[in-house]
């Protein structure tokens, strides 16, 4: 995803002189082309994230459209108050991009995990939040965020993730896309959980369960219209994210469903739990520790459907 991000950055830079990248000492060689072509449009602001965000706000107030970039925990939690005040309170057109989100850097340990970033970012007034599913969607998402002219947070993975889309998809804030249309259970996936969600759908289909798969890259705003439609047309809706169950994408979905007085009992949520991981492992290992493995999710969905059917008999 990060290579696609750098490619799209270069494309935007060629088209719009307002773009400036502020990297907090990450992206070794990633921005070489940008630096060569536009030396005054890239700044390594050092291992100093608070200042990175404040500078971005000052540039944005002076007509630029900065993109702030480093590893997710450091460009969100570390400089949270600068984002809250200098970017959001002032409604500055700053795009904040966190790389290695969720459990992408699983083996680096919990200091580099970010399973709380959706929660803390989406509560900020006026900010838009997105989690693209693959490298191609990163491009569309970055372009939309840049053009929006408002505070945006984008969580992306690292590199080498599976590519799901055949071409750069359409991305619009507040709009989700249906990848598969079924009728029994609807999987609402955000970010990099789309690929496992498709695998889950395959297994469920083999068991004669009809599955819809929706890519929910826009977390704030939600696609409320589609959410309501999916909730009304399926027996169950599962939210799937590489993020804490508390305050994340699933949390946002449930908040909205409850506020609309819709049937929240249809919803089952998948995400990380209320503990840090202490043992070493790659992303798949970490997902399994949190019950986010493909088989783990599939089994829970099957038993959830069964319980719902038993109850409505």
């Amino acid at each position, binding site marked *: 995803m990060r290579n696609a991000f750098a490619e799209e950055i270069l494309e935007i830079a060629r088209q719009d002189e307002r773009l400036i990248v502020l990297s907090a000492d990450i992206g070794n060689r990633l921005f070489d082309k940008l630096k060569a072509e536009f030396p005054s449009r890239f700044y390594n602001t050092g291992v100093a994230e608070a200042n990175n965000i404040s*500078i971005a706000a*000052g540039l944005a107030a002076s007509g630029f459209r900065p993109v702030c970039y480093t590893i997710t925990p450091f460009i969100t939690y570390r400089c949270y*108050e600068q984002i809250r005040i200098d970017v959001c309170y002032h409604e500055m057109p700053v795009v904040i991009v966190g790389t290695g989100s969720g459990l992408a850097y699983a083996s680096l340990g919990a200091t580099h995990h970010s399973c709380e970033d959706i929660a803390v970012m989406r509560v900020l007034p006026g900010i838009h939040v997105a989690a693209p599913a693959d490298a191609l969607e990163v491009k569309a998402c970055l372009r939309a965020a840049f053009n929006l002219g408002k505070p945006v947070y984008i969580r992306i993975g690292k590199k080498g993730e599976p590519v799901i889309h055949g071409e750069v998809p359409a991305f619009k804030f507040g709009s989700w896309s249906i990848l598969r249309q079924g009728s029994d259970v609807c999987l609402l996936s955000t970010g990099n959980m789309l690929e496992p969600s498709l695998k889950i759908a395959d297994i469920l289909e083999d068991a004669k369960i009809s599955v819809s798969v929706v890519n929910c890259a826009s977390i704030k705003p939600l696609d409320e219209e589609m959410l309501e439609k999916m909730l009304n047309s399926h027996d169950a809706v599962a939210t799937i994210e590489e993020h804490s169950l508390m305050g994340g994408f699933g949390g946002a979905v449930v908040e909205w469903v409850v506020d609309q007085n819709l049937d929240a009992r249809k919803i089952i949520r998948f995400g990380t739990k209320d503990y840090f991981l202490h043992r070493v492992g790659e992303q798949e290992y970490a997902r399994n520790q949190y019950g986010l493995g493909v088989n783990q999710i599939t089994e829970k969905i099957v038993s959830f459907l069964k319980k719902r059917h038993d109850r409505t008999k």
Partner: protein
Amino acid sequence: MTPDTNLLDRIAREVRFKLLEMSNSAQTGHLGGSLSCVDILVSAYWRALRIDPANPCDPDRDRLIFSKGHAISALYAVLAKRGFFPEKDLDSFNEEGGCLPEQPSPHCAPGVEWATGSLGHGLGVGIGMALAARLRGKKYRVYVVMSDGECQEGSVWESAMFAPRHGLNNLKVIVDFNKWQATGRSCEIMAMEPLSEKFSSFGWRAIEVQGHDINALNATLTDWNDDDPRPIAVIAHTVKGYGISFIQDDNNWHYRSPSNEEVAKAKVELQLP
């Protein structure tokens, strides 16, 4: 005193009295830190900044980021007196539903460049603006007024490392070094000194100035050298609550507001009619 010094001295005394009135009617604190930076602001707005009160959003204007937002009443009063907005608007300071909060919000008044109040943000934002000037080939300069307690924020030193690296000599930070913070002497709470040397060792051109000497302030705030790549740090030695005998250097005035009798007494001290 020269005629010019007389004029600015008079303005500063009037601003100080206005601050007491505002604190009295709005029942707000932070009077000490507001009074300590009055002379800095008078020098900036009457002699240093290239600004037009009738055109506060001029893209070529000099910017002043008032980073010690808790003392914003001083900036409000100065901006009003300088003609950015009517002085009668100051009556709505901290009024419910009003536009002039006790700590500034974005665009709360013409001339207020940034919403501050959480310390340690203004310098980074000022760097962004100074960098933008450089990139756009603009001649405007950026001033950032900070408090001494504010220099305890780590983000200040992140900024302090960035500006010299990029040769931002269109940037000037002024520390209102009044030696107090909310609950005590700033130099007793943290190892503040030597503050000037801290900035110079970070690559700034550091200048110490007596922060209530209007002529010294004028000389320092208008001192720019395009041939020197260093950003400028002005350490202004001030007295918290300066100008009112029963307020100055008494840190209780970080929290309390003056009574009607105290306002009247101050008026006499300030030799105002």
